[in-house]
Structures are given as structure tokens and as C-alpha cells.
């Protein structure tokens, strides 16, 4: 085959077949040795892995079986020999544990969800509860709150009641007038001591008591 060169001259390219001979024996030996070594290494590695897995399995199985038998026996023996309650009480911060547990729980909702309060109330001794209830103060409280005296007064006071109140007031006024005149005639300057013992408590006596005064409440002979 010919082609034109850069200077215009013809260049001829000649191709001829390769002349490779038989492989060199040393190269062949080298290749065989390398292949043998690689195969041996791979086989050894695989064998080691297999042995390791087998041994691990066997050991684990046997140890677990041994532990399954031994641990309960040992634990029972230990528990029999020590007082776990005392140990817990002495070594464990129960308050901290309980507080932590209570903090993390919503006891109210748990009780509401899980406790039958009606059943508890049904079983409760209501009489004992009532015995502790201050009935008389409670009744007094109700009477005061609904202002029962005023209701009674409004519903019962009629013309007769008002007439009686008027008569009484006039009597009181006349009492005071007579007393004043007599005191003036007797040249007395101090007011009369008219607080008497018993109910109704005189308002003057109450005021004196509230003020811590030692005024004579009763003028007993």
C-alpha cells in the first residue's frame, strides 16, 4: 500500500504476520505458582471463617444453655440469702423514684379513667362523714345566706306587728325621757348602766368588749 508523503514522495507501508513463538517455561512456571498461591489463600480464608462461625455458634449455644440452667439457681440462692426489701430501702432513693414517677404521671386522669368513683362512694360510710360535718354551723350559714329572718319578717309582719313595734318604740322613748328627767333632777352627769347579762347581748356591752374596755356590764347589787 502506498500513500503520498508531505514532500510529494510516495511512501510504501508493508504489513507482515506476527512471529510469536512458544511461551517461555519460566513464565509458565511463574503463572502456575501465582495461581496456586491465590487459590490456597482463598481456601484458607474461607476455612478460617467457617471454623470461626462454627465455634462461635457452638460456644454461644452451650454457654446460653448453661446460663439458662445456672442463673435461676444462683439467683434464687442469692435472693434466699439476702433481704431484698432491706437492700432496696437502704440502697435505693425511693423518694426520688416515686417523685419522678409521679411527676411523669397524670394521676388525676389515671384515677378518672381507671377508678370507679361511684363504686367507692357507694361503699363509703356516709354516716361517718355526716358525723364530721358541722351541721349547726352549716344550718346557720344557710340561714344567714338566704337571710331567713328577713324573709320571715317580711312575710309575717303586718299591721299588727308594725303597731306593736311602734308601741314598743314609744315605750322606749318614754323610758329614756323619764330616765333623763330623773337624772337631771338628781344632778347626775354619768349615763345609766343598763347592760344586763344574757341574751340578747347588749350592743353597748358588745362594743365595750370589742374595744377591750372593762366597763361594768352588769350592775349587780
Amino acid at each position, binding site marked *: 500500500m502506498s500513500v503520498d508523503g508531505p514532500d510529494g514522495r510516495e511512501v510504501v507501508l508493508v504489513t507482515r504476520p506476527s512471529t510469536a513463538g512458544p511461551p517461555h517455561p519460566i513464565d509458565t512456571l511463574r503463572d502456575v505458582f501465582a495461581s496456586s498461591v491465590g487459590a490456597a489463600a482463598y481456601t484458607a480464608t474461607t476455612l478460617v471463617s467457617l471454623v470461626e462461625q462454627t465455634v462461635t455458634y457452638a460456644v454461644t449455644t452451650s454457654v446460653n444453655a448453661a446460663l439458662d440452667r445456672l442463673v435461676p439457681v444462683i439467683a434464687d440462692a442469692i435472693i434466699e440469702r439476702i433481704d431484698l426489701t432491706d437492700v432496696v430501702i437502704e440502697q435505693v432513693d425511693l423518694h426520688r423514684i416515686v417523685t419522678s414517677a409521679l411527676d411523669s404521671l397524670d394521676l388525676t386522669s389515671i384515677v378518672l379513667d381507671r377508678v370507679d368513683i361511684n363504686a367507692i362512694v357507694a361503699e363509703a360510710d356516709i354516716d361517718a362523714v355526716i358525723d364530721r360535718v*358541722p351541721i*349547726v*354551723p*352549716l344550718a*346557720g*350559714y344557710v*340561714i*344567714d*345566706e338566704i*337571710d*331567713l*329572718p*328577713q324573709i*320571715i*319578717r317580711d312575710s309575717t309582719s303586718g299591721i299588727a306587728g308594725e303597731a*306593736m*313595734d311602734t*308601741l*314598743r*318604740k314609744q*315605750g*322606749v322613748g*318614754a*323610758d*329614756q*325621757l*323619764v*330616765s333623763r328627767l*330623773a337624772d337631771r333632777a*338628781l344632778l*347626775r352627769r354619768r349615763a*345609766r*348602766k*343598763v*347592760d*344586763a*347579762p*344574757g*341574751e*340578747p*347581748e*347588749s*350592743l*353597748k*356591752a*358588745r362594743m365595750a*368588749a370589742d374595744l377591750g374596755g372593762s366597763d361594768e*356590764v*352588769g*350592775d*349587780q*347589787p
Partner: protein
Amino acid sequence: MTSFREYRETVEAGGAVDREMPALPSDAIVFQGDRAGFVSRAVAAGIDVTLVFLTVLGTIAVLWMLSFVVNPTAPGSTVSSTENRLPGLAIMIIYGYALNWAYWTIGWATTGRTIGNLVMGLRVVNRKGQHPNWAGAALRSAFCAFFPFGLLWVIVSRSNRSVQDVVLRTSVVYDWVVGIPGMGRRAGIIKDQDAAAT
């Protein structure tokens, strides 16, 4: 609105809870428990005596009518005479005094009030502030019946006491609310403030 807890605390702290007071006219509260003056007591006594007098008159009228049943008189008879059909004046006076004594005794020993006291809003109490016992009431009643002028001492007494009150250590107080004396204290509602006064 006061809660029951506040109410109890008030009571336990000694705050007096007196539910009789609101039933009174506001201007009458101030003198409740004070010893009454002469006029109220005189009017009360007058009402009582008048009632007794009317009862005596009624008794006489009934006896007079009954006498005609027991001893009827024929029309035109000259035997009938009013004097024979009526008890004597002395007997009537003794009857009136006895009736008055019994009436006052029962009233004062049971409730501390007679009808006259009730009308005038008065109550008789002993030195402990309770209504008198039967003996005390009977004694006071007799004293008042036989010595009514003892009431005049109220006018000059510094503590509105009659002679009977001074001698028997009783008092007549204004108490317009009809109730059972001492009931509130026994129920533990009213503070026992007058223990020192007795």
C-alpha cells in the same frame, strides 16, 4: 357571697353571728339587752293587771250566771238579791291577787315573759341572764303583787332596777325577738361573751 369556709372561720374566730338581729327594726337593735325603763315596765304591768282584772270580772260573771242555775229564782220573788249571788269583795281581791301571782309566776318561770311583757318587748332574766326558776319567779311575782310601788325605784335607779330587781337580783330587759333564751349559745352559734358578766 360568703363561702362556708369563711363563715366557719368567722365563727371560730369569735365573730358573733346573731341572726335574731336582722329580724328587728334597725333602730331597735341598739337597745336590745338593755334594762328597760319605767314606762315600758309600767305599761306591761298595767296590761297584765288589766288582763287579770278582766279575768276576775269574767269569773264573777260566770259565777253569777251559774248561781241562777244552782239557785233559780221565780219571777216576782223578793228573795233574790245580788249580794247573795256574788262572792264578797275580800274574796274577789284575794282571788285577783292569787290569779295575778300565779300568772306572773308561770309567765316568768317558763319564758320570762307575760303578755304585757310580750306586748312591750320585755323579758325578765335572773343574774345569769336566764329566765328565773320557779321559786325565783314565784318570789318575784309575790313581791311585785304585794309591793307594786317597788317599780318606782326604776326611775331613780342608776341601772333601771326596781326594788324587786335589787333584792332578787333580777333584771327586765328589752328583748323584742321571741325565742328560747340561751338556745343560740347552747347550739354554739353565738359566742359566749357574757360569761364574765355573770
